[in-house]
């Protein structure tokens, strides 16, 4: 019976505009979103490769220059030109290392929070600077915005499903064929379910086929466990929307009522629930404003500045082995103080940051729990997590930068504090991120 209803549905549906609209438009949207996604990732990879090449070139240049100095083929006049100086190698100009969050294999599928949070940043002895592709470096980001596969799947696919499923039985009532169906030796509910299953398989097939074909063309690897998980997630999401269509068709409502009702549910799940969740989390866990945080930072910087000499004197008392007394170069006296002040500033900022971070964490945890009420939000979050573009991963950049900065400081600061310069052989040991 199922094969019979499927073959009839196929005969029936291929004469409908809704079917051809879905067959033509949906694969194009999926293809376009994957094209934009793969371009975005290509740009990221180019950015990363470019920065790595610049870094390598800088440190190779330093080493070559130092070797020339050691051979007596070259000389330096000023301390800041000396490639053996820890400050030159760890702090100034191009010195420092970039930390990257490498794109995950499914990164082309979801831009996620990439337009808000950076995926790389630069670390020096005193700075941790998150960076982002700007319009000049990567104009593509400006063009594509956030149109990605996740958007097509979460926002647009339900509309195609509604178009394909809103009137499966109501149209039978309206056209009069329902009366004849009721007189058949098959339950009307069984016919409805089988028709819906066929349409579900059709839409699901179009999505999966398009996804696989375009992925192969754009070099996105989906033939792995993550690809299977993605297919399972898509099937569950499509089934959710088809189930809503079935529900509406079970009521004896008109096609118009079904269409309006299902569109209303689309608005409810995709717009209203997220807004309500946002309202709840911001009401329960309010985060102080950004302006307040900037003011706080300035206050801390001013206080460190005001207490500068006292802070340094205390540090000298506490760390006598890390400080060379006597007739030391001017740059040493200046920078040893700056490092101490930078450390003091950071310690105070981290303390103050907690009052901003804790509510933000609470917000994220509550939002994560409330997301279960909206399958679209749940899927969006899952896709971003799989793509590695979710807030948690992008925020982990800061931790990675902090961890690397510690490694960087541990390598350079003791040398600087002891006023020990590098040899060209030692430059090979300069830390690099994994």
């Amino acid at each position: 019976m199922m094969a019979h209803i499927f073959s009839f549905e196929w005969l029936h549906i291929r004469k409908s505009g809704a079917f051809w609209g879905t067959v033509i438009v949906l694969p194009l949207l999926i293809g376009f979103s994957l094209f934009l996604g793969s371009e975005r990732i290509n740009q990221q990879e180019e950015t990363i490769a470019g920065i790595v090449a610049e870094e390598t070139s800088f440190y190779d240049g330093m080493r070559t220059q130092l070797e020339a100095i050691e051979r007596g083929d070259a000389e330096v006049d000023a301390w800041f030109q000396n490639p053996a100086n820890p400050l030159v190698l760890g702090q100034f100009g191009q010195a420092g290392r970039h930390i990257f969050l490498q794109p995950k294999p499914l990164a082309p599928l979801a831009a996620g929070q990439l337009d808000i949070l950076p995926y790389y940043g630069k670390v020096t002895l005193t700075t941790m600077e998150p960076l982002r592709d700007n319009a000049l470096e990567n104009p593509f980001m400006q063009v594509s915005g956030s149109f990605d596969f996740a958007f097509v799947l979460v926002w647009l696919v339900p509309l195609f499903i509604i178009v394909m499923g809103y009137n499966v039985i109501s149209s039978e009532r309206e056209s009069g064929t329902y009366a004849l169906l009721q007189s058949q030796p098959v339950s009307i509910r069984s016919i409805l379910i089988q028709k819906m299953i066929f349409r579900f398989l059709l839409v699901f097939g179009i999505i999966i086929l398009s996804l696989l074909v375009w992925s192969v063309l754009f070099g996105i690897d989906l033939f792995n466990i993550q690809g299977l998980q993605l297919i399972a997630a898509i099937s569950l999401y499509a089934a959710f929307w088809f189930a809503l269509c079935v529900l509406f068709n079970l009521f004896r409502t008109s096609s118009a009522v079904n269409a309006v009702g299902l569109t209303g549910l689309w608005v409810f799940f995709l717009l209203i629930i997220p807004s309500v969740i946002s309202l709840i989390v911001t009401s329960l866990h309010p985060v102080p404003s950004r302006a307040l945080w900037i003011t706080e930072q300035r206050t801390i910087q001013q206080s460190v500045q005001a207490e500068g000499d006292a802070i340094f004197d205390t540090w000298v008392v506490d760390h006598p082995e890390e400080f060379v007394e006597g007739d030391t170069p001017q740059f040493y006296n200046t920078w040893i103080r700056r490092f101490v002040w930078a450390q003091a500033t950071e310690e105070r900022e981290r303390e103050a940051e907690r009052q901003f971070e804790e509510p933000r964490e609470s917000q994220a945890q509550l939002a994560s729990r409330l997301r279960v009420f909206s399958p679209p939000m749940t899927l969006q979050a899952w896709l971003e997590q799989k793509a590695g573009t979710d807030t948690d991963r992008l925020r982990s950049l800061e931790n990675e930068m902090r961890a690397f900065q510690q490694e960087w400081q541990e390598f350079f600061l003791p040398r600087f504090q002891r006023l020990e310069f590098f040899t060209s052989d030692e430059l090979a040991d300069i830390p690099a991120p994994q």
Partner: protein
Amino acid sequence: MIDIENLTKCFGNTVAVNNLKLNVAKGEIYCLLGANGAGKTTTINSLLNLVQLEGGSAKIGGMNVADEPLKTKEKLTYIPENLSLYPSLSGIENLRFFCGLSGIKLSDSKAVSYLKEAGLQVDSAHKRVGGYSKGMRQKVGIALAIARSSEVLLLDEPTSGLDPAASSDFATLLTDMKERGAAVLMATHDLFRAKETGTKIGIMNRGSLVDELNAADVTHSDLEKIYLNHMRA
């Protein structure tokens, strides 16, 4: 073949069918006459198990339709007043679909032969049903009954709106079905067609069967008088 015993159906406080008793044997065309709201359609709907009865029973082939709704539907073909088919499909495709729901697989050529048997021209059979007249659609319904070898035919005012020639063609098809041994129950307003085609005529008024006649025993004018007397009573 069709046995209705003490059937009672109410819609709120309105009694649509009151203690109706009616039997249609194989090879019999039973025409059910009555004004609008007399209970004819409710009687047919009760045989399709589309309404819940307050009392009595409706049986087809000895099976209670309420107990065996799908099995009883295997034995019957229902043609409503306005038979609606899938307009984007051809007569052949429609016939194949509805036969398939009964588990009967038809080839295109077999479907064409059934449609031809029901009086539909071969070139029309290949055309989209959207362009069919009501008479042509009724012929697809009859073709469905032929293809399924239905033992029972339930017709709800099938000739209303048909021109005299189409109505006559339809009556011929019903006679063919009768000769094949089908039990036909037809609700109609058409006294002439009831007398010409029917073997038995029942007159319903306000939900009750008020008279039952053998079609052969009455003339057209007698039937009209009897009918009007009941309606004015």
